């Protein structure tokens, strides 16, 4: 085991080896946490206390520093689960399946945060907590997809069976999630403003809001990475513990 991890890394796939993965993730995890806390701390404090109020929306605009990053991560988490599921189905790397599993609750939580902050923002802006607007509805549907995925993981006892079935569900679910997105747009044209952010910062938003928002988006991204790494490491350790216990009881 130890001389295995001494070999120089020749391909990205070597990190599919749990020993390698544990060594590397253990090393980078503290840095990710520090960077995450720094970005979130600076971004949110800057955003909440040191930006001017919007001339039309007042101080309610500040919830954007939570709303936009969490919505972004809610979608990207599902996308990451899709990639991880494909890797598991094609190359059978256990770390990949465990990473998909670890990402699901984080993604579901991000979806709830986005929905909740959206409701809090929508109340003063649109005068209603909830509206069956395409974006809001798609997020609700995305949340249902997360719940189904998590429930399937929780219901199946055998780990490999669970990984296989949830991966299949993730792939089929992705197709239907995209379909639902377009169906919902067709069904109801909504209130929600178009995307305010794009990577080439354009005229929608001034620099005063842009920099803290980018920082908090980066912070949420790092938070997601950190939580997924912690979750995956916990799962790997759990499996090792179970294997050791099984071996001990067999002896």
């Amino acid at each position: 085991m130890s001389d295995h991890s001494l070999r120089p890394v020749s391909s990205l796939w070597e990190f599919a080896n749990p020993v390698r993965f544990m060594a590397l993730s253990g090393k980078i995890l503290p840095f990710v946490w520090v960077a995450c806390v720094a970005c979130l701390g600076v971004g949110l404090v800057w955003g909440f206390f040191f930006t001017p109020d919007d001339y039309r929306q007042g101080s309610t605009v500040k919830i954007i520093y939570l709303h936009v990053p969490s919505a972004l991560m809610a979608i990207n988490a599902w996308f990451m689960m899709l990639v991880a599921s494909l890797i598991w189905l094609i190359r059978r790397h256990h770390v990949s399946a465990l990473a998909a599993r670890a990402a699901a609750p984080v993604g579901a939580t991000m979806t709830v945060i986005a929905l909740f902050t959206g409701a809090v923002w929508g109340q003063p802006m649109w005068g209603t907590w909830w509206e069956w607007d395409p974006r809001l509805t798609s997020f609700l549907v995305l949340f249902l997809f997360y719940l189904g995925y998590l429930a399937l993981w929780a219901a199946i006892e055998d780990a490999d069976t669970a990984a296989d079935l949830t991966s299949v569900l993730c792939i089929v679910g992705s197709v239907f999630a995209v379909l639902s997105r377009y169906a919902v747009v067709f069904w109801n044209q909504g209130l929600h403003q178009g995307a305010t952010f794009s990577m080439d910062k354009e005229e929608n938003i001034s620099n005063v809001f842009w920099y803290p928002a980018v920082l908090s988006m980066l912070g949420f991204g790092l938070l997601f990475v950190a939580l997924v790494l912690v979750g995956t490491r916990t799962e790997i350790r759990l499996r090792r513990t179970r294997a050791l216990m099984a071996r001990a009881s067999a002896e």
Partner: protein
Amino acid sequence: MIALLRRDLALAVRAGGGFGLALVFFLIVVTLVPFAVGPGQVQLAAIAPGILWLGALLACLLSLDRILALDYEDGALELIATAPLPLEAVAAVKALAHWLTTGLPLVLVAPVLGILLNLPGPGYLWVVVSLAIGTPALSAIGTFGAALTVGLKRGGLLLSLIVLPLYVPTLIFGAEVARRGALGQPLETPLMLLAGITLASVALLPFASAAALRVNLR
């Protein structure tokens, strides 16, 4: 394939197969709606297409665990899996049998229940058409959900949790066709999208169902 289809149909129609339960459920849902929202004719007419679609969808959902669970319990599914027929074809036949015993009767009974809900005149045709086009997708998606959960002891509720989000696009387009039909509005776009979803589901989902079945029968 035909033998399997005959077998499934016979099992469903005979006593204990649960044939007709979905229809009774559909009837009960439609009966309960006026109690919940009030008997106003105008109000009922406005929501009738949506209620018919929702009732048919729920009736379909309730009958899903019948597709595979019984065969799994008595071991027939493993025998079918070892037969020369590929599992993809098995999944497709199972979906077809489910549609013939559940979807098709629901389509046929929907206009009768439409009377109870004061469905507007042109709506009858379009409710039937949209259900006839949409329910095969419900059966195909449902077979996929049943294949995912077939090995589980208490799979029923989980099955609903997994399948319902997948039903969203079908429901949206199907109910939209029925609603526009009832109001006499143009409905080509949702009709074509609904047909597209059904065709894609029927063509592709048996592969996903077969993949899930292979895992569960391993």
